């Protein structure tokens, strides 16, 4: 039954837009998209510029004599670090991976309760939203003290644990789970599924677009953060801090820093493409007959 109806829909959609409309959309997106791409383009071009062009006045947008010396310098500097560069990459990937997955799991479990359970602590959710309002900079001092007391300084946990209860994820997941029909959960409950089973086999698959989107935000958040002062051991430092050290070490390293920032953008972009490709049409209502 589903297949033929989808076919009709697609046919109608395609038929309803003229060629001019498609071209119009394309032009419009290209116009706005140009401003999105410009900084990235600027970074790419700057990383290809030789030093005299980087410091030329008046500055030029395009490169005259492209060179790979910035990128080579980045890699040779990275190879000469006291701690092997791969160690930083591993640290960053490990910390971001564990923190992101943990955050999504904890946030979803909690959001499930706030959204679908009829218990008396739903006011706590408001507390969570208000947590988002508070300026993180000011909190860092007492946070540091409590981490010192818990012995989290100088460990991976110092990076990971504070990220797990980020409010943003809970907030997003709860808003998405509110859309989920309660009847779906009730019917599974009547059929004898445990809450854990309902959570893993019904709720999570249905809100997949939500956590796929959260994956992007959370990964991005952890990957780009460079919490200072939590870890002193060079072995445990993150890629961000390694690259900023490389960049800060020399004055004439604008090109290198551009190359470094491009390098650091690669994983979030990969995560983004993978996650958004899997956000396909979901049938949040497919389990129900109205």
């Amino acid at each position, binding site marked *: 039954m589903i297949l033929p109806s989808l076919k009709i829909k697609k046919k109608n959609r395609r038929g309803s837009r003229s060629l001019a409309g498609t071209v119009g959309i394309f032009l419009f997106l290209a116009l706005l998209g140009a401003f999105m791409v410009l900084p990235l383009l600027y970074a790419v071009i700057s990383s290809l510029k030789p030093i005299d062009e980087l410091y030329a006045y008046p500055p030029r947008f395009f490169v005259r004599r492209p060179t790979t010396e910035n990128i080579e310098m980045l890699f040779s500097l990275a190879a000469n670090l006291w701690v092997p560069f791969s160690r930083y990459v591993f640290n960053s990937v490990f910390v971001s991976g564990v923190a992101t997955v943990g955050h999504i799991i904890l946030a979803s479990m909690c959001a499930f309760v706030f959204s679908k359970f009829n218990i008396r602590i739903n006011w*706590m959710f408001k507390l969570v939203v208000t947590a988002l*309002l508070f300026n993180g900079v000011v909190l860092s001092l007492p946070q540091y*003290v409590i981490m010192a007391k*818990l012995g989290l300084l100088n460990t991976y946990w110092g990076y990971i644990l504070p990220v797990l209860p980020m409010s943003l994820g809970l907030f997003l997941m709860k*808003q998405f789970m509110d*859309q989920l029909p309660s009847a779906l959960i009730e019917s599974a409950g009547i059929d004898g599924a445990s809450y854990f089973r309902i959570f893993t086999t019904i709720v999570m698959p249905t809100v997949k677009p939500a956590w796929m989107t959260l994956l992007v935000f959370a990964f991005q958040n952890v990957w780009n953060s460079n919490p200072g002062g939590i870890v002193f051991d060079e072995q445990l430092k993150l890629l961000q801090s390694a690259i900023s050290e490389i960049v800060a070490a020399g004055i004439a390293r604008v090109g290198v820093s551009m190359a470094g920032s491009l390098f650091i953008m690669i994983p979030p972009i990969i995560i983004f493409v993978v996650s*958004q490709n899997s956000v396909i049409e979901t049938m949040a209502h497919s389990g129900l007959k109205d």
Partner: protein
Amino acid sequence: MNKSKLFKMSYERRQGLVGYVFLIPWMIGTLIFFCYPFFHTVWMSFCDVSFDAGSIITHFKGIDAYTEVFLKQQFLQQASTHLGTTLLHTVCVLIISIFLAIILNQEFFGRSFWRVIFSLPIIVASGLVLSVFQKDLTFQASVTSESTNIFQNEALTEMLLSMGIGDKIIEVVVTAVSSVVDILWMSGVQILLFITGLQSISPSLYEVCDVEGATAWQRFWRVTFPLLTPYIFLNIIYSIIDISTQSTAEVMYTMRYYYNNTFYANASAAATGYFLMILVVLGVISLALSKRIVYIDK
């Protein structure tokens, strides 16, 4: 004994218990990493703060820090100005992100490519990448770079300059473009959330529209818009929080100034006061909107 008691409990009781089990990990985390620091910060705002061997020593002092920050200095004015800007930007961000999300949700050639393009702000405008850009621009020193969009304009200006276009035309183009670009650069997350929202609308509703012969206009206002209201609400709250706590805002700059210069009481007072201001704004907005949200379920 205990086990049999568990089975005798009512459905609601059991549900509640399981709920707590699901909540506990999160709650512990929030208590340790948010609640404690939060109340500590509020407490610090009423105190004289000093340090001794890795611990914070506080002596209660009263509301001195608040009168200092809010009455004697310009913080209140900065804060309210920024809240005004926040509301204005939120409205613009919402309009532009709904618009773009609807376009990006349609089927056309290269859709996933454009989605990546319009989500670039999420990836570019944070962390090291941003600081590298800003560092580069402060070096290039034409404008003091304070916000995400400046490097935008900078790049645009440079591009136009290198194309050999006159100064005056550049100025007009840049101001017109910069406000749109400004908004676009704040909309990355919102566009993504709206796309996810649009995906969750059941296609059968649109089939009904096609069968009944609804125009695209009717389809938007009668189906898409009402079903998007939860996401609009989500995005309003997200945008207000995001924009009001933008690290490039003057208010945030002042707070960081207090903090970095060890005026911890002042920093805490400023943060608490600003927090309360945003809270009031959000409270009013969510009260006004909460009854207009359409849930399929309820």
